């Protein structure tokens, strides 16, 4: 058993990190809020291989496993990458032109609940909508959809559109294919939550060392230290859970895959939310201000909580596995 990240995996992660630090540093994130998705960024992400990670090399992809995918997506989310990266990466194998970055795909998971308002992320930036249902995968072109934009989405970087109806579209996969995408989508969303939880810790740590009050860094006060320590523990638990789920899904585990994936989504979701909430607190007055990181991290955590199963839904699933 060697559960560590390998050297190659660490190099991959570092590559994504460098790209993000150079291409989407935080001040560009603030600027890109409430602006259309930058097509140049999308092309760059495609060139980086973000959308073709899971396709085999024969198919022109990078042939990576989920272990690599979670590392990549954690980094992307850590830097608050805008756009429907998760849905596009998830469906690149099923929809042509997505891997090259020429077609932008967004999605809806209707395997859990089909009732209620139909709210789609990144609708205007997307060309195609993929809908996951219990027994099929449906593909619907944006031109066939009607709705209205939500003027003020919670996450300024995740525009929302409310659709009036969902036409049938074209079936491009069966129940099994849909379930596979739900599994992978859940894991990638968990990875993104992990990235958010790490970003919150990083930002809060730096702030606590820099910000001075009462003639000393606020990080020298035990109350702040203990908040940060709890954030670290949460993040480490989430990390272990996400990595374990990825390894298991790649066939290198010892437990039930579904259970591990639910564990990852639950733990990472909780870490993302609580760490972002703590990040706001550690920043004090500056945590309440638009132009600083904390609220972006917090709001993105809500977006990811509401895709591929909430913490409560996953807790319920895990409980079911304990019932005799």
């Amino acid at each position, binding site marked *: *058993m*060697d559960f560590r990240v390998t050297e190659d995996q660490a190099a991959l992660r570092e590559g994504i990190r460098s790209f993000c630090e150079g291409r989407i540093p935080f001040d560009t994130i603030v600027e890109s809020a409430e602006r259309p998705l930058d097509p140049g960024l999308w092309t760059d992400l495609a060139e980086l291989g973000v959308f073709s990670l899971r396709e085999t090399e024969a198919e022109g992809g990078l042939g990576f496993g989920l272990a690599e995918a979670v590392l990549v997506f954690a980094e992307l989310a850590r830097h608050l990458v805008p756009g429907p990266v998760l849905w596009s990466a998830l469906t690149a194998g099923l929809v042509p032109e997505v891997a090259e970055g020429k077609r932008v795909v967004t999605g809806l998971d209707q395997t859990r609940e089909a009732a209620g308002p139909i709210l789609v992320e990144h609708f205007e930036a997307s060309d195609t909508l993929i809908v996951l249902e219990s027994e099929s995968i449906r593909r619907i072109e944006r031109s066939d959809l009607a709705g209205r934009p939500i003027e003020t989405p919670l996450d300024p970087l995740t525009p929302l559109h409310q659709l009036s109806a969902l036409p049938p579209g074209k079936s491009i996969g069966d129940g099994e294919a849909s379930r596979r995408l739900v599994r992978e989508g859940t894991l990638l969303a968990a990875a993104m939550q992990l990235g958010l939880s790490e970003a919150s810790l990083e930002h809060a740590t730096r702030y606590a060392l820099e910000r001075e009050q009462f003639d000393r860094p606020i990080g*020298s006060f035990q109350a702040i230290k*203990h908040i940060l*320590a709890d954030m670290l523990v949460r993040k480490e638990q989430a990390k272990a859970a996400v990595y374990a789920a990825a390894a298991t899904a790649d066939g290198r585990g010892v437990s039930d895959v579904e259970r591990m994936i639910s564990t990852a989504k639950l*733990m990472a979701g909780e870490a993302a939310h609580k760490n972002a909430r703590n990040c706001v607190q550690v920043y004090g007055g500056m945590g309440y201000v638009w132009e600083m990181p904390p609220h972006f991290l917090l709001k993105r955590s809500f977006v990811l909580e509401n895709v591929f199963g909430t*913490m409560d839904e996953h807790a*319920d699933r*895990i*409980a079911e596995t304990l019932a005799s």
Partner: protein
Amino acid sequence: MDLRYSESDQHFRSDLRAWLAEAVAAHGPGPSRHDWDARRAYDTSWQRKLFEAGYAGINWPKEYGGRGASLMEELVYYEELSRARAPNVAMNFVGVRHGGPTLIAEGTDEQKAAHLPRILRGEEVWCQGFSEPTAGSDLAALRTSAVLDGDHYVVNGQKIWTSFAHCADYCELLVRTGTDSKHRGISWLVMPMDLEGIEIRPLPTLLGESDFSEMFLEDVRIPVGNRVGKENDGWRVTNVTLSFERGTAWAADVIQLQRMLEGIAELAQSIERQGASAWDDQALRREIGHLSAEVESVWSMVKLQVSELAQSGVPGLGGSVIKLAFTELNQRIFELGTRLLGRAGLARDPVEGLADLGLVDRYLSTLSLTIAAGSSQIQRNIISERMLGMPKEPRVR
């Protein structure tokens, strides 16, 4: 990122499992908590059996009679012992996990020869004389004094939280041999428990009668040859023991915890509530599902830490993270268990008509987990200072 065990680890597992199946059944259930003689016999004879089967001192080097197991084998070892519901290390704990490893790292050949084989065979029981009423979290503030008189130290002072003091043959004793420096005035002694001047007073805890005692030491004469390491170097020696800790300390407990949760889930299904069962309460199920996810991820943290340690050879600070997460989780699980029992939880003894998981007593005993072996508050200080680079706590003097 591979969680699978190697073939050789799996062979180790299957051999151990086969042995445990017979050995655990043959050893039988433990005696009454109040029967100290029977408990010593039970615990030490189990240690003897482990020794004869080649499983004693799982992480002790082979040259000292241990198994010399790899980290992965050690994890497998704890997994299998838990699965088999094997007897706990109990009275053998200080000798096998603490005192023995300290002698291995810092003892003279004479000290090693005198104690190590006997510890492994269950012929010696050790206790720990570290904490004092005025030295808990601040252990280095200890005051029990040791004054040189010829070739003996004359020891005076008081210790607290000494487990199994009245059953022990030896005590690993921290004493003050120097007053010029706090940390560099401490020495590590092996104290035979049959010496004159040792008074043992049982220390009841919130559980009632306990395994703990206070020890009063009045002019106890300990040979200088019983000192481990140099005079005034005892603090370093103590920390060396901690570095023996290989990230597996909590492994056994973590595995047990998942099993306890399953037991609680089963119990909930048998408890009648409002015409249905307690398990029909979605809030309860959800809480249990959440706790199960937490246990699973702590187990993954242990594996990640062990993997990293196996490669680097250097124990990281992950131990603090795991200890903090695990102990608080442990408390929440048994608190839920106690809540589940409702009025039946007012009884610490089994109540007729309900399966007895000892949940209430387990809950009470978990209250110590966030206090002992570095309180949660100390762990948070350690994590924020040593892992996140926060300024250290200001010293008062």
